[in-house]
């Protein structure tokens, strides 16, 4: 793990600190977090930091829309006609995302990026109506980032195998019960 990765991990841990738990808060915590604590973004293994490949030396930045040689596992199903990698990923600062305004956003704050279009969801998410909260109903909570449930490249929530149904009463009588 290189230094940058450790830095990000540290940041994620800091963000995860409950804002109102009465513990001394780290001074350098960005005010922009608004007390929202999120776990580490769900990167594919070994993919982050992006600058370990996209360091500006090994490869030239090519902003043209094209079939990529790499990242073939990514299936873009998020408005593919109007959207492309560099609409969200920052071409010059690869370990960041950027908003439509060009303002850089950390991966740990990606909800700001999503909220540009999905503002209603972001509003709901901030107050706990959209998305999953765990922890304590009257104390520190843990939020998930949008991308924990919605793959940003293909955001539709994936179907799941249901867990077993209840036993029918006639099955129980047949000897399920002892």
């Amino acid at each position: 793990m290189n230094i940058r990765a450790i830095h990000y991990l540290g940041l994620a841990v800091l963000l995860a600190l409950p804002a109102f738990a009465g513990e001394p808060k780290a001074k350098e915590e960005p005010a922009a977090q608004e007390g929202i604590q999120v776990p580490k973004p769900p990167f594919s293994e070994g993919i982050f930091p992006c600058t370990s490949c996209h360091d500006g030396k090994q490869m030239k930045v090519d902003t043209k829309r094209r079939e990529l040689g790499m990242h073939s596992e990514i299936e873009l199903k998020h408005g593919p006609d109007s959207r492309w990698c560099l609409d969200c990923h920052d071409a010059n600062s690869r370990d960041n995302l950027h908003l439509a305004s060009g303002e850089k956003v950390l991966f740990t704050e990606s909800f700001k990026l999503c909220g540009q279009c999905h503002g209603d969801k972001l509003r709901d998410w901030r107050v706990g109506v959209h998305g999953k909260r765990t922890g304590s109903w009257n104390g520190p909570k843990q939020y998930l980032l949008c991308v924990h449930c919605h793959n940003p490249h293909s955001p539709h929530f994936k179907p799941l195998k249901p867990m077993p149904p209840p036993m029918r009463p006639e099955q129980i009588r047949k000897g399920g019960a002892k």
Partner: protein
Amino acid sequence: MMDHQPMHPQDDGGGASACGSRREFLGTAVAAVATALTGCGKLSKEEFLQHNFRELSKDEIQTIIARLESEYKAKYGKTVKVNNEAAMPGVIFGYALDLSRCIGCRRCVHACVKENNQSRDPEIQWIRVLEMDKEEGVNLQHAEQYYNPEEVPREGHFYMPVQCQQCKKPPCVKVCPVGATWKEKDGIVVVDYNWCIGCRYCMAACPYGARHFNWGEPTMKSADVNPETHYLGNRPRPKGVVEKCTFCIQRTRKGLYPACVEICPTGSRKFGNLLDAKSEIRQVLENKRVFKFKEDLNTQPTFFYFYGV
């Protein structure tokens, strides 16, 4: 009959009961006769004479909890803690479920069984997920609880988990002939399993099918027992009593979310204090389209369904 009464205490070997007051003496005698008559051979004298939970003093509760804990230890070979946490002041619990998000994966059903020490064979489940037709809307004539496709959600369907609605006017409480079930100050409807006589009137009265009966001796492997329990909640139950969802009383009275909220992969389940204007439950009630299930029955649930989109 009266001739029998003096006989029994002497048969007991004249322990503590024989040298107590007249009241104690009679109590023991009655217990012995009742045991003989009802065939409840397994019931200890203490258990038989135990009062309704709401009438017990703090000391009595502690004694009972100690007895239960030692019984559970003997039965499951591990330490099971029976908690007695009271309702927090200024808290009324509310629950909201997002019908536009639930995909019917039943993670909640099984997390609930694990958390609340339900009987495993046959498995008692406190949450029932209904698969309904989108075309029909919330219509129980078009509801299926045994659905089992490869993947959920199925096209054209939505899913509606039903569990205890913790009604403000609970019909189950109204019909209980012995007062073994009641509504706590924080809104949770609880059962005193030691006071329940198993008449199942409450099950007939509940319009949500939220109450479940232990027809057989509840079965649970020792490894499956959740040792963090509450007297009015998930402590292991005996045969012949009714049980129900308690909003995970053992968790929520400590400030935690219920197990079904914690497990839900879609974040459809919202829980909080109805008296706290900033809680997510209040946000839901104030900003979303909300309905109560079978509202026409005037049971006044504190469990709400809403549409998040």
